[in-house]
């Protein structure tokens, strides 16, 4: 049985075959039935969601729908602020934090009539690749609940792959949308830096963070991106670039004569699982059969992307997370004698181990005597990584790569080795350093039945081409929309 896509549900709403209230009740019931196994949500907004659904039904009855997705349930990663609804970042530090404002992306969804049903689990402050670093427990992969869903947007990936909601928003700093999408068998898109406003997205690494869609299929990704994209006066780094009608142009893309770069570093890397390698070969063969020309390229600086990322991202994080000091909001340690003790103990008790590790790493690389050796050097290597992308994109329309070097791994298997966890992002992390856009597409399965995703990447603000290319390929592959067998029985 296939997962229901949002565009399919929107068609049923438009025909009057179903109401938004029915869709939202179905979603809430399925969440209730499956959460004991999946733990995708930190907060479920039952009352607000039902009220919003009834408003949507009233608008529809009056012929005043706000968008094609009016009335569709959606889940939000819990690092995007939602006015009046707690926003925890899956951290003890913000466990009780109720923001007085909404992020622009959430506001745009609500302005388009979508119904927010809840806030999804993540690795604390979006730092992690397995959704195990959460103050609210780990999320489980619907394809095998002993395995991780990837991360950090693991809760959003699980909510979509488990059929709890048709759509979700995630955020991607080094692969946090694409990697969980790959491990859960759904579509995940990291837009170009600046395509979606970051206002109200709790900052991890401000030069890398980007909000994007996590969906059942490519058409939904196009619809959801179109809803949240655009310039925002509240985020000066959001781009003043027109937003095309992504969904309308999907079918006009033609693979014939298109060139796809195959960087050898992405396809021969050590640690690449043989089943993922086979899937990657089949993916390229499929592209060729659609008329694309595969161009072999080399991107010699990709092997430095993990090191570069963990210097740049931790430096930015150490600065961004300095605000959690127990003074104005969030957790405060009890019984401290002076303000330094309050800061230090609040952060000791409020942050999990991965946050501490990264804050210290970032503080160290920015500290006197080390700045040039680490931070400045990493910023220069970042330039070289970006140039590798620019050269590949001069020779080709798109770049192809596996999304993750391996399929979903067993929970607990990487938690004792931070560096082994960082290597999960080896194929996704360089794109954030370059700032360009990329999409993970469900492309096959392991013999054991775990999903495998493949990435397509394109240049700045080329989401229209990227989505069209992915849509055509999706039709040819026929993998997207597959429902996890584990959860199928409980389906609403």
């Amino acid at each position, binding site marked *: 049985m296939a997962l229901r896509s949002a565009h399919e549900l929107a068609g049923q709403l438009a025909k009057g075959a179903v109401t938004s209230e029915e869709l939202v009740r179905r979603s809430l019931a399925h969440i209730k039935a499956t959460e004991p196994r999946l733990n995708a949500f930190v907060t479920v907004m039952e009352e607000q969601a039902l009220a919003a659904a009834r408003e949507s039904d009233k608008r529809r009855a009056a012929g005043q729908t706000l968008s094609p997705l009016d009335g569709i349930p959606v889940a939000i990663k819990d690092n995007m602020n939602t006015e009046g609804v707690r926003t925890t970042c899956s951290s003890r530090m913000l466990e009780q934090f109720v923001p007085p404002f909404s992020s622009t992306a959430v506001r745009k969804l609500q302005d388009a009539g979508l119904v927010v049903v809840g806030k999804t689990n993540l690795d604390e402050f979006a730092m992690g690749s397995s959704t195990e670093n959460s103050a609210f427990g780990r999320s489980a992969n619907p394809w095998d609940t002993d395995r991780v869903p990837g991360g950090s947007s693991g809760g959003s990936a699980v909510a979509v792959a488990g059929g709890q909601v048709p759509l979700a928003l995630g955020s991607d700093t080094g692969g946090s949308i694409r990697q969980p999408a790959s491990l859960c068998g759904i579509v995940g898109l990291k837009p170009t830096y600046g395509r979606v406003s970051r206002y109200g997205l709790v900052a991890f690494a401000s030069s890398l963070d980007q909000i994007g869609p996590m969906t059942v299929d490519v058409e939904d990704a196009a619809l959801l991106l179109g809803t949240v994209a655009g310039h925002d006066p509240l985020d000066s780094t959001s781009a003043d670039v027109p937003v095309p009608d992504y969904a309308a142009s999907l079918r006009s893309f033609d693979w014939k004569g298109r060139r796809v770069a195959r960087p050898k570093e992405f396809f021969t890397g050590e640690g690449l699982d043989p089943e993922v390698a086979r899937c990657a070969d089949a993916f390229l063969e499929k592209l060729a059969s659609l008329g694309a020309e595969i161009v072999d390229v080399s991107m010699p600086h990709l092997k*430095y992307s993990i090191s570069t990322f963990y210097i740049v991202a931790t430096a930015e994080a150490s600065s961004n997370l300095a605000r959690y000091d127990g003074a*104005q909001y969030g957790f405060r340690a009890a019984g401290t004698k002076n303000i330094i003790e309050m800061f230090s103990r609040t952060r000791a008790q409020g942050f999990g181990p991965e946050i*501490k*590790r990264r804050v210290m790493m970032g503080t160290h690389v920015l500290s006197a005597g080390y700045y040039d050796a*680490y931070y400045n050097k990493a910023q220069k290597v970042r*330039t070289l990584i*970006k140039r590798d992308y620019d050269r590949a994109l001069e020779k080709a329309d798109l770049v192809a790569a596996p999304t993750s070097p391996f399929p979903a791994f067993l929970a607990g298997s990487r938690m004792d080795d931070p560096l082994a966890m960082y290597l999960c992002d080896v194929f996704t992390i360089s794109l954030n350093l370059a700032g360009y856009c990329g999409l993970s597409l469900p492309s096959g399965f392991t013999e054991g039945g775990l999903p495998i995703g493949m990435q397509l990447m394109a240049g700045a603000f080329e989401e229209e081409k990227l989505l069209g290319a992915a849509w055509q390929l999706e039709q040819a592959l026929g993998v997207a929309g597959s429902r996890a067998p584990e959860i199928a029985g409980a389906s609403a």
Partner: protein
Amino acid sequence: MKITPELVEHVALLSRLELTEEQKAQFSRELSKIFEYVEQLGEVDVSGVEPTAHPLPQKNKFRPDEVVPGLANETALANAPETEDVYFKVPQVL
């Protein structure tokens, strides 16, 4: 580079993180391993390469300097761990 427990202590102070002795030893081990890995950047020739702080060109954007409503005092204080009157309250500073 080796991140000694003493260096961990120094960085933890800069980071305003109170650590137990056990944590200092653990972070020393883990951070040493991570910094050993990132040493690979030493082999990259970056002479003449400009640093990238921002992935795409940014230009300053201006907006009209108009007064808009801000957060009301009680809204701003609503999440505060401790307040007094219209203020955030913290332990002794000096």
